[in-house]
């Protein structure tokens, strides 16, 4: 609890900083809206079509593969924490890693081989 108190204060101060920045610009900045300024910026040319482009699923693929590998990478963290101290008790954790990393490498190899992300 004691360790969280400075964190809480930091959260509050950061929030105040954000509000402060917003308020100061609102107060100090002039307000002279002109129509051109408030329209969508496309290099000065008149905006063309809707702003939401048809989607490319490769962005989705990057995000979803990130999600899956993030989960797998997150599992490494607790493993790494106990690995050093477990060495005295035998290689159980080492083999657990080999199996785990092997499976993860197969997954990675698969996406690279299938060229899912259209890398090349």
């Amino acid at each position, binding site marked *: *609890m004691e360790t969280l108190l400075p964190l809480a204060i930091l959260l509050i101060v950061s929030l105040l900083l954000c509000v402060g920045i917003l308020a100061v610009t609102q107060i100090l900045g002039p307000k002279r809206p002109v129509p051109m300024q408030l329209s969508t910026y496309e290099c000065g040319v008149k905006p063309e079509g809707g702003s939401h482009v048809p989607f490319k*699923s490769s962005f*989705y693929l990057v995000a*979803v593969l990130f*999600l*899956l590998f*993030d*989960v797998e990478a997150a*599992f490494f963290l607790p493993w790494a924490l106990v690995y050093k101290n477990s060495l005295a008790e035998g290689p159980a954790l080492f083999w657990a890693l080999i199996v785990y990393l092997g499976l993860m490498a197969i997954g990675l190899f698969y996406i690279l081989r299938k060229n899912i992300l259209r890398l090349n």
Partner: protein
Amino acid sequence: MILSEKLASIGYWTHFVTVALFALGLIGFLIRRNALIVLMSLELMLNAVNLLLVQISMRTGTSEGMVLVVFVITIAAAEVAVGLGIILNLYRMKKTVDLDSFRSLSG
């Protein structure tokens, strides 16, 4: 704050938070027709379960609950990955994510 005091705050009030979170997830699951929000409601329900597991784990001083939470989070990630993949495919066919428009499986 000393430990027992901290744990005392894991009381009736936390049960209420847990079930309220679950109920909110359930309501969202039932009333919304946007597939994305339905999926999000599912996440809320899973999180209510996580909350309960952590609570029990802290109460009993064992780690089993935490390990289960790790598993639940993995399953949730998997569910979202597949769920959103399916939603994207459905959107490609129907140009909408309204669940009522996906009726091709019903008679």
